[in-house]
């Protein structure tokens, strides 16, 4: 018992003198933790050359360069704040291979690591930087967002795009010459730090070291922004998050609504407005050769409607580049190897009875799948749609899309593709094509190719199997059922009361 009290007293003393947020780190201990937890990615020497360096997207940080993306010190300071480093180690970086370590490392472990990082970056003698002053914060308001919008449109859209989807008008590279993609600001869950306006304010003020994101607090910059202007831009940027379609993991069903009249054949048809969107994650194909480790597309949003004869899907996904081979602007952004953008709907040829489905990566020999694929076209040829039956990723049979009635029409605007694909519910070849049926859960999957990111053939992003349901309108049935049940229950109760009363009467009589 004594020892516990002693320990607590000591802890209180340490807390008072050092303060919880700035515990001194032991670089030697940090080196040991680095060897145990970090070096597999960041390399034995901490230079980012660990085993997975080639395949990690983005690549692991090179600590010897002493260049950190997430920092709240001034743009001229080399050293990030200790709390900046601590936070990245503790919480990780969303959308990267860097996990948060708070469940495996103690606070002291992390301070020790930070001490070691400073040794690696030869930063031990470096004066601590001047932290960004958050006390100037202007709370988000309609007024502030409205003031931020024109500033954003002037300073930011060249790289982040008109709607903030990261559709840069130029090819961006980091200091090492590696290709980088500007953040899609409508997807706050991919922000490496967070979408708190304070975080955005810090990035806008000091920039992101090593990338083409400049410091807008730099008084020498032609594009410099005042403190107030930077808060307005931060508030406007944070507001863009509302435009993104986040994934709801509970929602695994694409609901096709029944409509009267023709199914829509173009993305801007007003009849899409009433349909319910469903968004899924896209993951890179890393199951079969040749694998793809550096995807750029990350989610896809689906809508579907049908009528008596046809079904139509609207597929929408954020793709920073409109990849049209032959187009000089597209080739400038993409570099060599520009290919068409593409998207595919995958359906089983037969609706499975029971739970057995075709293999989710393009089917298997026993259970083939239909793939309807749309391609964005080149400057010489318009967009195309193809139909193949897959019996595995290397077992593809080309078929006649026109004969099966598969049609497609796509358009790209401000970093988003919108593609409509249509087909009659029934085709002339029921053995080779899925025949759509109302009211049945039909497995469905999707795939996308970004032609400006080297994605062709087996290099693409995909979803696992989800469900499609052609939901017939309920019509009068629920009302009739409810009425019948109500009458039956009421009649039963009355009969019970009656017979009870009669029995009571008999007993008295």
């Amino acid at each position, binding site marked *: 018992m004594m020892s516990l009290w002693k320990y607590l007293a000591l802890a209180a003393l340490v807390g008072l003198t050092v303060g919880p947020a700035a515990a001194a780190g032991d670089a030697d201990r940090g080196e040991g933790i680095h060897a145990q937890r970090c070096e*597999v*990615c960041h390399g034995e020497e901490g230079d980012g050359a*660990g*085993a*997975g360096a080639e*395949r990690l997207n983005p690549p692991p940080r090179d600590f010897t360069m002493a260049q950190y993306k997430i920092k709240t010190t001034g743009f001229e300071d080399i050293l990030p704040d200790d709390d900046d480093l601590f936070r990245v180690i503790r919480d990780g970086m969303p959308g*990267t*291979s*860097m*996990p948060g370590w708070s*469940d*495996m490392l103690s606070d002291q472990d992390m301070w020790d690591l930070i001490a070691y990082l400073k040794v690696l970056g030869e930063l031990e003698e470096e004066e601590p930087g001047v932290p960004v002053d958050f006390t100037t914060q202007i709370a988000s308001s309609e007024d502030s967002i409205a003031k931020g919008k024109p500033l954003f449109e002037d300073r930011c859209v060249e790289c982040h795009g008109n709607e903030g989807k990261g559709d840069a008008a130029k090819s961006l590279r980091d200091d090492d010459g590696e290709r980088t993609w500007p953040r899609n600001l409508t997807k706050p869950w991919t922000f490496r730090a967070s979408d708190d306006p304070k975080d955005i304010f810090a990035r806008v003020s000091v920039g992101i070291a090593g990338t083409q994101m400049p410091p807008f607090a730099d008084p020498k910059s032609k594009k410099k922004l005042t403190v107030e202007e930077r808060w307005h831009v931060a508030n406007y940027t944070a507001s863009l998050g509302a435009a993104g379609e986040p*994934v709801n993991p*509970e929602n*695994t*069903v694409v*609901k096709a609504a029944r409509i009267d009249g023709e199914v829509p054949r173009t993305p801007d048809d007003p009849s899409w407005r009433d349909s319910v969107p469903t968004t*899924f*994650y*896209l*993951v*890179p194909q*890393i199951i*079969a*050769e040749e694998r793809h*480790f550096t995807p750029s597309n990350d989610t896809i949003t689906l809508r579907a409607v049908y009528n008596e004869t046809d079904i139509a899907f609207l597929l929408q996904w954020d793709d920073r580049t409109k990849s049209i081979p032959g187009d000089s602007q597209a080739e400038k952004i993409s570099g060599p190897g520009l290919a068409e953008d593409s998207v595919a709907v995958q359906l089983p040829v037969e609706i499975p009875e029971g*739970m*057995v*489905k075709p*293999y*989710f990566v393009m089917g*298997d020999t026993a*259970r083939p799948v239909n793939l309807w694929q749309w391609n964005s076209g080149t400057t010489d040829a318009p967009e195309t749609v193809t139909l193949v039956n897959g019996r595995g990723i290397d077992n593809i049979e080309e078929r006649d899309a026109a004969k099966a009635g598969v049609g497609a029409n796509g358009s790209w605007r401000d970093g988003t593709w919108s593609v409509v694909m249509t087909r009659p519910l029934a085709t002339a070849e029921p053995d080779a094509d899925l025949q759509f049926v109302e*009211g049945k*859960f039909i497995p469905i999957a999707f795939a996308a190719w970004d032609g400006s990111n080297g994605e062709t053939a087996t290099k693409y992003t995909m*979803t*696992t*199997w989800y469900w499609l*349901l052609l*939901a*017939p309108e*309920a019509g009068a*049935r*629920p009302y009739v*059922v*409810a*009425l*019948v*049940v*109500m*009458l039956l*229950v009421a009649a039963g*109760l*009355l009969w*019970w*009361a009656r017979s*009870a*009363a009669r*029995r*009571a009467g008999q007993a008295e009589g």
Partner: protein
Amino acid sequence: MPRLPKLLQAVLAVAVVYLGFVVVFDFALGQPIPKSLMIMFMFFVVIGVLMVFTFTEDGTRELVAPIRALVEDPAKKRLRNLVFVIVPLAAGALAFNQAQPSYEAPLELRAIHPAPPSSVELYDKRYDLLSLENPYRELETEDPEQFRELVAEGADVYIENCHFCHGDKLDGQGPYAQGLNPVPLSFQDLGTIAQLQESYLFWRIATGGPGLPDEAAPWISAMPVWQDFLSEDEIWKVILFLYDYTGHRPRSWEAE
């Protein structure tokens, strides 16, 4: 303290179990039970409660007494009229909701660790899974230094191939995990590699999702067929790493 009427006790018992499910699964675990499964559970709970409460004839009589009184006692006429309106209306509303088309996806139950075959053909060889052992395991005691090296090589294999789904920390939270269904397993979890033999891991890694038997739904597993990418040696080394990093011990015939 006056005893609660039996009917109220029964209703309370069912309500407590239901709330228990909601608290544990929806709030504590954050994984709500699908509606269809919940209906099935609650059906059995109601049956169970009824069985307990109607175990004796007195009990049965006591349980239904308030209901009987409501229907048969002339003094309760006003309450009866009210109940006779509310009950059919409630039944109608329930039926109305049930008759609406459902968007709830079908349940897919699968075996996570299905029984392995007794032998398996890999790398153009036949392996007897009952006697197969990790050829490097004995170095753990015989040559710890070489063993550490092999573990480190296994770590490299893991980061280059496995962490994308199973996570840097082996917790099943890799950068692409959230896009997969079924979700990648966490090796930190006591229910995975801690329960298995190394030969089982060898089989699961080498043949991947497509090597699963039907009860484990091979068509949805995103686990690649690793014998196409990794050598036999690399698989044994990555297995060493999995146990070393998590601190779990492989199960073996001798130890039990």
